[in-house]
Each structure stands twice: as structure tokens, then as C-alpha cells.
């Protein structure tokens, strides 16, 4: 950790011990959330999400390909995250690093486990299948990009139109069927520092955190979990934040359905 980050962390610990956060918020409150759907004309579906000053764009596109040999009756989808270098001074150009891969996999896992995308409907007449690409473009990182990326992916799925397959090519314009996901999944990331737990970290809280838990939630079920960082969590802690994750899920669900 750099000296500057070490100083920031110490300052943050002092503040958090006084029962306060870096921004004027309760420990389990999100910053203001804003979702704009269908913002990229060249994509099949897209959404731009802002949580405070954090900005993430998700865009979905389709291609035609071969199914996995062990699952010939299912299409495929994959999720990729790009930490655009201007989003955070620590992001560098180049192939995805471990953080970018982890984020993409956490978002992917929530969508996959919740089974909200009907991959069986991706099978085409000639044995080929639709391949769906979910791209998560981190444009501005002021903390908690995981939840923002999860929301953006969900927002994009909600407005995705499936291209038609005609004479061996994809037709991306005209009257198209909605993807119509079967449910709504949201991700909720909790940080831990000095035995305090909080949701929706700002960047300094992210940098200082000793550990994080991300819960993927759909209705009354947990559909994915990721623990990251060195901190240990007690069972009580894990269940306390689980209850909060369910509450936050219903709040975020309303925002997603909003427009």
C-alpha cells in the first residue's frame, strides 16, 4: 500500500471509530442511484448507472457461434469488464487484471445462478446458438464499482432485444423480441474496517477496507457470494449484512424498474 493510501486508511479508521463515514451517510445507506437504460444504439441492450460519482456502462451484443459440446441445447453468454484507464489513476491499459476478472465473474455468477436468462431460447434452427456478450465498462470509479456494474448489467438485460437469425446472419434492426429476463438480481457489497461494516463504499473506503462481501440477491434468495480481501467475518456479521442485502435488494429493484 502506498504511503498516501496508508495515511488515508488511518484517517478513515479514526473517523469510522467515531461512528461516522467519509460521506455524510449511514453505514447501510447507498449514495444517490441513477439508471439510464438503452443509451447505446449499436448495442442490443445497455444501461448507464451512476452511484454517487461512480459511473458504469453495461452493453450487450449478440453473435452466432457453436454451443458447448456438453450442452448442445443451450446458448452461451459471457461477461467482461474493462477498467477504462481514465476511470481510476490505478487502472492501467492492458489485458484484464485480477480485479477486473473478479468483478466480471461476480456479476456473471449472480446472473447465471439466478437463471434469469433463458439460454435454451438461444438455440438456432441449424444447431448453432446465440452468444451473448455482456460488457461492463467502468468509466469513473468513485467506489463500489461491483454493485454499479451489477445494476448496469441488470438494467441492460431489462432492455435487451434479441436479434433475428435469418439465412445464416443476424438481423439487428426492425421488430425484435425482448430478452425479458425472468427475474431481477442485484449485488450488494459490504466493506469491513476496524470491525465496522458498511455498504456502498466510496473510493477511499474501498482502498482502506480490510475485506469485502458481495451478495447477489434475487427476491428472497441469495444467488451468489464473493468474499474478497484478508478480513475475517463472523457468522453473525455475515447474517446481519445478509438481512440488509435483502432490504437493499427491494430498494434497488424499484429503481431498476423505474423507467
Amino acid at each position, binding site marked *: 500500500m502506498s504511503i498516501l493510501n496508508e495515511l488515508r486508511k488511518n484517517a478513515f479508521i479514526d473517523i469510522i471509530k467515531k461512528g461516522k463515514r467519509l460521506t455524510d451517510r449511514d453505514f447501510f445507506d447507498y449514495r444517490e442511484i441513477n439508471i*439510464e437504460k438503452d*443509451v*447505446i*444504439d*449499436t*448495442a442490443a441492450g*445497455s444501461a*448507464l448507472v*451512476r452511484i454517487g*460519482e461512480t*459511473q458504469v*456502462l453495461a*452493453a*450487450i*451484443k*449478440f*453473435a452466432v457461434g457453436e454451443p458447448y459440446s456438453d450442452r448442445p441445447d443451450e446458448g452461451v453468454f459471457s461477461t*467482461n469488464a*474493462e477498467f*477504462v*484507464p*481514465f*476511470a*481510476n*489513476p490505478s487502472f492501467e*491499459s*492492458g*489485458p484484464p487484471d485480477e480485479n477486473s476478472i473478479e468483478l466480471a465473474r461476480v456479476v456473471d455468477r449472480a446472473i447465471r445462478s439466478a437463471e434469469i436468462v433463458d439460454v435454451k431460447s438461444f438455440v438456432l434452427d441449424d444447431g448453432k446458438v446465440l452468444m451473448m*456478450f455482456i*460488457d461492463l*465498462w467502468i*468509466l*469513473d*470509479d*468513485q467506489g463500489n464499482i461491483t454493485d454499479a456494474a451489477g445494476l448496469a448489467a441488470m438494467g441492460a438485460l431489462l432492455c435487451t432485444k434479441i436479434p433475428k437469425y435469418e439465412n445464416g446472419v443476424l438481423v*439487428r434492426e426492425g421488430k425484435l423480441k425482448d430478452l425479458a429476463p425472468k427475474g431481477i438480481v442485484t449485488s450488494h457489497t459490504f466493506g469491513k474496517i476496524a470491525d465496522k461494516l458498511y455498504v456502498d463504499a466510496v473510493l477511499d473506503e474501498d482502498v482502506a477496507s480490510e475485506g469485502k462481501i458481495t451478495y447477489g440477491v434475487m427476491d428472497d434468495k441469495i444467488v451468489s457470494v464473493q468474499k474478497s480481501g484478508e478480513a475475517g467475518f463472523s457468522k453473525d456479521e455475515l447474517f446481519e449484512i445478509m438481512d440488509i442485502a435483502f432490504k437493499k435488494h427491494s430498494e434497488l429493484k424499484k429503481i431498476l424498474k423505474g423507467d
Partner: protein
Amino acid sequence: MSKNEKLIVNGKRTDGRKPNEFRPLSIKAHVLSNTEGSALVKWGNNVILAGVRGPRECIPKHMTDPFKAVLKVRYSMAPFSSKEEHGRSGPNRRSIEISKIIKHVFENVVILEKFPKSQIEIYIEVLQSDGGTRCAAITAAAVALADAGIPMKDLVQAIAVGKVGDTILLDLNYVEDSADNGSDMPIAVAGRNKEVLAFQMDGMLTKEDMSIMFDMAFEASEKIKEIQIKALEEVYFTDEKGETERYIEL
């Protein structure tokens, strides 16, 4: 050629423009929080984000120039930015060449001697494309650099002029750009003295054609400059607080 004939009907182009008209251009400066300067450019159906970081310490050290700052440019197209296939992430030969062209533009106007041993980074992300992204990228980067407060001799504008069939067209869109036997000539100019800072061409043109095309580009650059300046004024000539909210609107 039949493909081309449809591109201009009764003097109007597929999107209703006249031959010497450029697509609607809007610029918003200062849209990102983690950069010194940024700009969002929407030019026709192109959507481009540019962010500038620095001047900061030059890394790796062996690239350091003791007399001036090193300029680094990354132009990148998001895989979802094109109408057709999902592209591949990461740099390819095209984007590396465009990054280099853009770097040379700003090596000319940025006063790099002010910042020895440091680097200035320009990151350009194409989110939606419809022909003319390199010109939109240069136009965006110029505003992002100005927003970052980096001293420059001039503000740069860029636009492509092309020829399809017998007609010279300003600011080609993707369909026009990919026409058979078409020519495309992207140009970047310094706003005040019209020095040409980027210049590429593919196609087949006469000297006379090119002269007309240059004049069209110069004329358009004046209008582009006004839009750039307006975008910067919106951020810096604010009424009371002086703090503008930074966010992207797509």
C-alpha cells in the same frame, strides 16, 4: 457503383444532410471525476469519451525526457461500439495507428517543455461509432486537455472530408465511408493558424479535389471550434459556486 448512387438523392445524403454539412455535434466537458480533464463528444451517432491525466511522473523511468513531458495516447473502440459484430477488446493494428496519429497532433500544440520528466496521458474511449471516430476523438481530446488546464498553443479541431462518386462530402458517416470507390480524408487543424496537424487519405483524388476539400475542412473547423469553446465556457464561466457536477449523459 449502384451502391453509391443511392447515397445522394436530389442533392441530399442518406441522413438528409447537404454535401457540405457536418452532423450535429455536441460537447460536454468535465464529465469524469478521476481525471484532470475530460470531455464527452456526441457527433452524429458517434459517442466518444476522452480523459486526460497528468502531468505526473513519467513511468517507466527510461522513457523520461529531461527536457519535456512525454505524451501518451490510447484510442480504443469498445467492442459494442459498432453496428455489426461484437469486436475484440484491447488494442489492434488500427487503434495503435490512430493513437499514434493523435499523439503527433497534440505533441505539436501542448507546451510539453513546461513539464520536464513527466507524462501526460490522453485516453479515448469510443462507445458508439458511425464513421469519423478519429476526428471526433481528436476534437474531444482537445477539449479534455483544455479542461485539464494543460497549456496549449491552440485548440485543435478535426473533421473528415470525402468524395463519393463525383460529390465531395463533408464528415462522412459509416455508410458513406465504406462506399465503393470512395475517398476519405481526415484532417486535424490548429484553430487559429490552420496548420494541418493530422492528415490522412485513402482513395483517389486530384489536386483540385483536395484543395476544395481542405477549404471545406477549414470552414467547418471554425464552427467546431465555437462548439468546443462553448463546452469549456459552460464549465468554467459558471455563476456563483463555480463547481459543476460531473456526469455522463448518453
